[in-house]
């Protein structure tokens, strides 16, 4: 049974890390399309897969957030990865199996996975 008391220990542990991270202020943003079209196409497991992978790798400089419909419903689920100082990369037709590779190659090593991007999808 989860208890509220457990949260106090989590709070203490997290506060130190958060303070360090705020000083760094260079967060990578992962933005998932969570409108009706995105949800119906499977955005929820994609979002949770990013959360899991980021936690597994202990990445403290990545935030996951949501956006609405941007009008390309046929390409949902869509995910933007925004690295400070770099061009935004949009991944399309996402599924949870694609997430570990994006996290490893793009978020950790800085190399976008070109074959998953909107540019590659439009060229097909």
């Amino acid at each position, binding site marked *: *049974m*989860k208890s*509220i008391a*457990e*949260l*106090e220990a*989590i*709070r203490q*542990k*997290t*506060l130190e890390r*958060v303070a360090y991270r705020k000083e760094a202020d260079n967060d990578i943003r992962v933005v998932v399309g*969570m*409108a*009706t*079209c995105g*949800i*119906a196409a499977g955005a*929820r*497991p994609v*979002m*949770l897969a990013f*959360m899991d992978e*980021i*936690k597994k790798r202990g990445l403290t400089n990545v*935030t*996951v*957030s*949501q956006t*609405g*419909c941007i*009008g390309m419903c046929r390409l949902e689920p869509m995910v933007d990865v925004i690295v400070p100082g770099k061009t935004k990369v949009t991944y399309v037709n996402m599924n949870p199996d694609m997430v570990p590779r994006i996290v490893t190659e793009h978020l950790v090593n800085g190399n976008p996975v070109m074959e998953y991007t909107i540019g590659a999808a439009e060229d097909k």
Partner: protein
Amino acid sequence: MRDLSMHVLDIAQNSVKANAKTVSISFTVDEHRWLTIVFTDDGTGMAPELLQKVTDPFTTTRTTRKVGLGIPLIKENAELTGGTVTIESQPGKGTTLTATFDLNHIDCPPMGDMCDTLLTLVLLNPDQPDFVFHAQTPDREASFDTRVIRQALDGVALNEPEVTQWIRDAINEEFKPILEVQ
């Protein structure tokens, strides 16, 4: 929508977009296996003119594209099972949407991963609104309230990794036995 959990995520997102401070979602499964889902928010609410048209797929408050499918889709799925969707709303006070489904009906979509939907709502909206979840069957009850968690965390965000794991475990522990009814 493939399952009911997707409808729940989608409809609750409407409350988030309506600037609600608190969103409540309650699930009740009665002895005849009728599921009632009630969404209540204290967001901007809707004027009577909009409320009358809100189940029309070509009605939306969005200005970029004139399509709003969330409510029409849940209404269609509820009615396919013999259920209903009713909406009450007052500008400035908020909105309550009630959907009923006959879980025994052959056309009733599966429940889906409702726990993941509840977790997703909390994680995607770590600052506001607060979420209150409640589920009840004739022999079991569960509840979850981000206001209590926020108070205990005292400034630490709900989407911090360790907090996320705690919330995931808490929701699964409480709600899975009730919401995995199919």
